[in-house]
């Protein structure tokens, strides 16, 4: 009697034919195994992609947060603010909670997530997922001599959101992060050790302020510095690795 696969409305023949699904419904077990849904997710699960930098290089959209979890298991999150927001309805006010979460591994990756929900825990959980989806690489450089590891931003960068503008300026080693608590937390999670900051506009609006700092940090890799003036050799996208890329005649091709 193996008709466990009937679907539909037929009386007695369709529908749930019994839960003989072999394995038990252990909740924990199911939460740990990740069944990828997108193509990128499948490639990551099959270990065809070695690092998250390959994904950043081709600007591939990351839709599943488990991809980020896979490459960066040591991400730490920090709830910046829970802001209750209200909407006026005929039956009074409807309060929801907006959570701002910053996530980072203190070694070159940060993310920022904002989520609004009826309950605080749901908002925080959702914001963490959104923060993971928005993880971005941070470029660090030197203030003076190119010695040891990079410790500060490579150049002066600025980010703007609403009326809040944040400017990050390179600082000598040992300065620490000279900033307000909000951008300081963000820069710490990004792995920037020394930095001067200047903030303009209404920094009381925490949402705008943290987004402006996040934009500034993200701009470190958008800035074309002189050492990047040399022409780059294009590499194969993870989607193209085994196919017609090699068939095309190209001047610059990887050996």
């Amino acid at each position: 009697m193996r008709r466990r696969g009937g679907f539909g409305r037929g009386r007695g023949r369709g529908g749930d034919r019994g839960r003989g699904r072999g394995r038990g419904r252990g909740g924990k077990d199911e939460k740990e195994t990740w069944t990828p849904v997108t193509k990128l997710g499948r490639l990551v699960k099959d270990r065809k992609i070695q690092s998250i930098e390959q994904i950043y290089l081709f600007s591939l959209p990351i839709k599943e947060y488990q991809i980020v979890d896979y490459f960066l298991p040591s991400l730490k999150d920090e709830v910046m603010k829970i802001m209750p927001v209200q909407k006026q309805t005929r039956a009074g006010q409807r309060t929801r909670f907006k959570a701002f979460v910053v996530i980072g591994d203190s070694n070159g990756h940060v993310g920022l997530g904002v989520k609004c929900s009826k309950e605080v825990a749901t908002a925080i959980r959702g914001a963490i997922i959104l923060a993971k989806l928005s993880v971005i690489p941070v470029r660090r450089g030197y203030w003076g001599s190119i010695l040891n590891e990079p410790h500060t931003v490579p150049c002066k960068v600025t980010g703007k959101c609403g009326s809040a503008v944040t400017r990050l300026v390179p600082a000598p080693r040992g300065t620490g992060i000279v900033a307000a608590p909000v951008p300081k937390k963000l820069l710490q999670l990004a792995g920037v050790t020394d930095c001067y900051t200047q903030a303009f506009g209404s920094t009381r609006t925490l949402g705008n302020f943290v987004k402006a700092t996040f934009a500034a940090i993200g701009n470190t890799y958008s800035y074309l510095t002189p050492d990047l003036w040399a022409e780059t050799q294009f590499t194969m996208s993870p989607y193209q690795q085994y196919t017609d890329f090699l068939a095309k005649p190209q001047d610059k091709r990887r050996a």
Partner: protein
Amino acid sequence: MADNDNHMDQDHDNALEEAQVMLGFAEPVDLEEHGPLLAEDFCSKMGGLPIWLNPEHVLDIKDMSCDQCHKPMTFLLQLYSPEDHPAEAFHRVIYVFCCKNGACHKKSPQGCFKVVRSQLGQYNPYYTPVSNDDEDAAEENEGWEPLETSKHAKTCFVCGMYGPKVCSRCHKVSYCSAEHQSIHWTKGLHKQLCGTQPPPTPANLSELSISDNKESKDESEEEEEYDEDGNVIEKKKKALTQTLTKEQQDYANKLDIDYKLVERMNRFPELEIISEAEIFDQEALEEGLADESSGDEQEAEEGWEEKAAALKLKREKKAALLAKKNGGVSKSLETAESSMNALVPVGDEIYENTKTDIDSAFLTFQKRIALYPDQVLRYARMEYELTTPEPLYVSDIGIPKADDIPPCPDCGQQRTFEFQILPQMLNYLGIDHSAADALDFGTVLVYSCKENCHVEGKHYQPEVAAVQHFSEDGMQGGNMTIGPNVSVSSK
């Protein structure tokens, strides 16, 4: 800002009117316990060869070729979905075929998935209920068995569709097209096995003459002849079977390899689809989350309650003062008052830009999937009285509209949503995802005629499949796109 909660509210309100969705899960066929899947099991499965509901009339590749590359399509899945209302749809199976070549899908998604519906009445010349004393138990019966008089059409060895052609040498294996014949010849082992006979079985040999027995006696290790008859005979037989099964095993192995080569070449791996109801409890979801971080929640609330109370007092005092000053309540003041009741400082709320670019439809999809992460199918047509739930879309773009779905050619009515195939199924198809032309889709929505129109003589009614892909959006905050001409140092 993702207003996911609004969607959730709507779902909850309609939960009473909408039926629950039935989920499909792919599981390996349990060969030891149940044996291979047979037509009379009326099961749902994916991959392998299609099991035809109507064994006499099977699909022809003329109807089942890809619109782009014109090659025969590969069988993807079949669902057994019986209906009560039209008597002819007592047994009903939906077959889905797809083109294995991902490039065809990229060119035009529509012609690369084909769906047909096949149905049989309760009293048909192919299956009869397993004999039961109780006649009423016919519907709730133990199973069906095939009638001996049922005729079977010849099916192609490679793809399982109608096979009018035969191998020109042995005339034993059928094919649907010259292409599949050449696949079996070159990629399979038919070149070696064509025309060969399987080695004789023990039954055959026992009828042979005594001389053969003597020979085998010499080969065998047993020497005693005069023991009890039973013993001797058994031992002899054992010796015989030992030498025979080796040859037979070789042959059987070859057949097996042949089958497996062809299978890997042309078919998807065979799995059974098990159905299970989706238990979707909105409150349970949120409660579960609250349990995890209850500690934080309490602290925050305590902190806020005081703050909120203090803020409220302040605002109310201000409002009272303003009201006194200005006397009459104007519209602008009303809004100012209402905004003063908000816990966030007045001016700031308006200028706060906390919108982020997120794919909210995908996040809703992911949240729903997370309840049962390895589901491969969502079947929506569950109850007659309740409304069919809307399909779970994977993005905001590419949602098929009513005009995009052609109506049923027989009754003229609009086709309705029946089930959808989820992208998790791609994990089970054994395709190489790193190829640029790998098969990929967001979800495949299958629409079929609600009335299950039956046309005499037409055994396979075409239905409609609509494909939706994921959107290309990721998370981009402002101007933070990383260009391709920036080399990222990877460690």
